[in-house]
């Protein structure tokens, strides 16, 4: 039981609790903030796994960008309900919905986790090697040699997403103006 393992276990435990709050928190703003917290913890998990670069990228992308965008999205889309408990959060499930959104998801989730954990326990994984490697250099050189085409494609994808988001938002604006 060395420091890294302890750190991992603590981080993982808090992350599970925090992720649970993402699903159950009554206010959606709180859920989003819990999500940001979970992302931070996952970044910590990455550090304990020796992936500092990914940890920084995780904070940069998920905490700095994704969470912020989600907060913006919440504020822009439901300004009225944002302070109170999410009215959609808990309602009585009746009839088909009771099965569709009540029983079956719980069964599916529990079954999934159970199966996966069973599999993980059964497989004879290789022991983790010790020592430190400079993953930053490794990633950098691999990204620009072996994976250069996926890298460029990712850049194009981001550009398309950017343009797409703008087009979606702007076009709707115009329609509303014409309509009213």
């Amino acid at each position, binding site marked *: 039981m060395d420091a890294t393992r302890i750190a991992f276990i603590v981080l993982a435990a808090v992350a599970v609790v925090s992720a649970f709050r993402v699903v159950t928190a009554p206010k959606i703003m709180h859920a989003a903030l819990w999500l940001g917290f979970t992302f931070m913890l996952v970044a910590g998990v990455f550090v304990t796994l020796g992936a500092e670069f990914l940890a920084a990228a995780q904070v940069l992308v998920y905490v700095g960008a994704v969470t912020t965008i989600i907060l913006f999205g919440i504020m822009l889309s439901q300004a009225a309900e944002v302070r109170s408990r999410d009215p959609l959060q808990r309602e009585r499930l009746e009839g088909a919905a009771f099965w*569709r959104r009540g029983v*079956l*998801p719980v069964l*599916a989730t529990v079954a*999934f986790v159970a*199966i*996966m954990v*069973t*599999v993980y326990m059964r497989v004879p994984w290789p022991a983790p090697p010790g020592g430190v490697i400079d993953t930053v250099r490794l990633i950098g050189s691999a990204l620009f040699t072996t994976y250069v085409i996926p890298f460029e494609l990712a850049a194009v994808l981001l550009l398309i997403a950017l343009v797409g988001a703008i087009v979606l938002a702007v076009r709707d604006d115009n329609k509303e103006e014409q309509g009213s």
Partner: protein
Amino acid sequence: MIQLAWLIPVLPLAAAFFIALFGHRTTGKGDRVGIGAMSIAFLLSVGVLLDTMGGARWAQHLTWAIHGDLVLNLGFQVDPLAAVMLVVVTVVSLMVHIFSVGYMHGDVRYKRYYAVLSLFTASMLGLVISDNLLFLFVFWELMGLCSYLLIGHYFEERANVHAANKAFLTTRVGDVGMFVGIMLLFAAGGTFRFDELAARIADGSFALPVLAVAAILLFIGPVGKSAQFPLHVWLPDAMAGPTPASALIHAATMVAAGVYLVARGYALFAPVPQALEVVAWVGAFTALFAATIALVMEDIKKVLAYSTISQLGFMVAALGVGAYTAAVFHLMTHAFFKALLFLASGSVIHAVHTQNMHQMGGLFKKLPVTGWVWLIGAGALIGIPPLSGFWSKEEILLDAWHHHPAIFWTLVAAAALTAFYTTRATYLTFFGTPRDKHAYDHAHEGGRVMTYPLMILGVLAAVSGFVASPLAGFVYFGEPHHASFDPFVFGVATAVWVLGVGLALAIYKYNLVSRRAIIQVFYPIWVVLKRRYYIDDVYQYVFVRGMIGLALVSAWFDRHVIDLIVNAVGWIGRKVSEYVDEFDRGVVDGIVNGIGGAFVVGSRVLRQVQTGFVQSYMLVLFLGLLAGLAILVIGG
């Protein structure tokens, strides 16, 4: 300084992009930027030339693309030939840039003009210092594009658009040959670099026939770019562009590129006498042929255009007979005096707003500066000592006489004609009585921004001939060239230009022989010359009409033969299908309808699954995944 040689093309290139993007925001709409970049490039070129004369050489390359074993480099090199060309190109381009401030004043596409002008110069400079054929070809094509843009500058008129298209397409014909040549050399030698190619040739890696074919193919490019017969047709039409641009295209950049390429790749031609023979004859024939047309042209720019073709013929012929130094020398002096003549004609056109020499006359009094520099330029073109053209032409004739007398006599004839048409143009434009009173009265010099470049170029055109002997020890192929004096050649040359000038003066000034009479006597020849040997018409009939004719024949064949076959096949098919139809209706339709019905009933049941709730789909998807996982776990 020589390490900075790469900046020389980069500066105008940057200027071109800057003008194109931000030109409208700067004072002068970008002309200052262009002139500034050219000035610095010019100073750098002078520095590079001085370094080169001190014995410095420079080569550098960046890796551009790697494809397996093939490595393509962006390479630059500076040797004496390149250094001389850099100075010539930058000085002429700088003058053109400055002159254009006055000439293009108020033009609607002023910014675009300057951007293209800078890009054009950048391409030429890049071509000059590139060290491999592929890179050179890139700049070569870039220049084709720029010439297209400049010639079509006034694209409101259809004729100008056609001229631009013609220039682009005609030079493209040459470029195709050149590209095949480059690829052939690459296939045989495995490199694009000049020095490596020369080394391969020297150690005999090339089969001589391959080299001959490659050299001649490569030569087709210069034939197009430097407007040699039979691809010269674009150049006179290219006069449609603004006159300063014509000066740039026809003096320093575009047409010089062809000659430069032959000089640069001389190692390819030198071992193949047959190729050199072809080069020499193409050049000599072009020189004579273009000079004859220039005799009868009425448009001052057309005279200069054919004169350019003719002078380029001189250079090409010089390369063909092995007078490498003389060719480069003439390229340099010609750049100066032809740029001067074009700019001077631009000044005249600016003053009288016509290009027809028969509507000018007597302008010397009105345009003294233009007149004087024109006289210097014309003298240099004719080859009057001690003006620059005399020295370079003399060298060419000398080498031709020593190596190839037949070529020599052809060139002498061309030189005589040159003297005649130049004198004719000079007299009609500047002397005699004004034939268009209105234009004459309103003519005036175009201001300092136009006269100063003319004067500078005038000085250069006058004195640049004196560098003959330093140049000979500096730019050479194989071993240094020694200029010698041959009284016979000098005598012949002097006799022919005196004869030409005298004859022209006799006809146009003293009216010893009536022009009308001459035309009547030589009427058939006159018409042929006037129609430019019908070459444009031949191209029109052979290529354009020929293509249409071919199309008509093909259409007939298509309609009558192929359609017949098709119809027959169709008829058979119809008969067959009539029988199939019966079967289809009875048996197949029954099955199909049955299946369709089954699907209708089935989908009525199945569509209940499409609830429209995204989460239901996700749930089903996941349950499926779980089932798969479970099977794996239990099975494995």
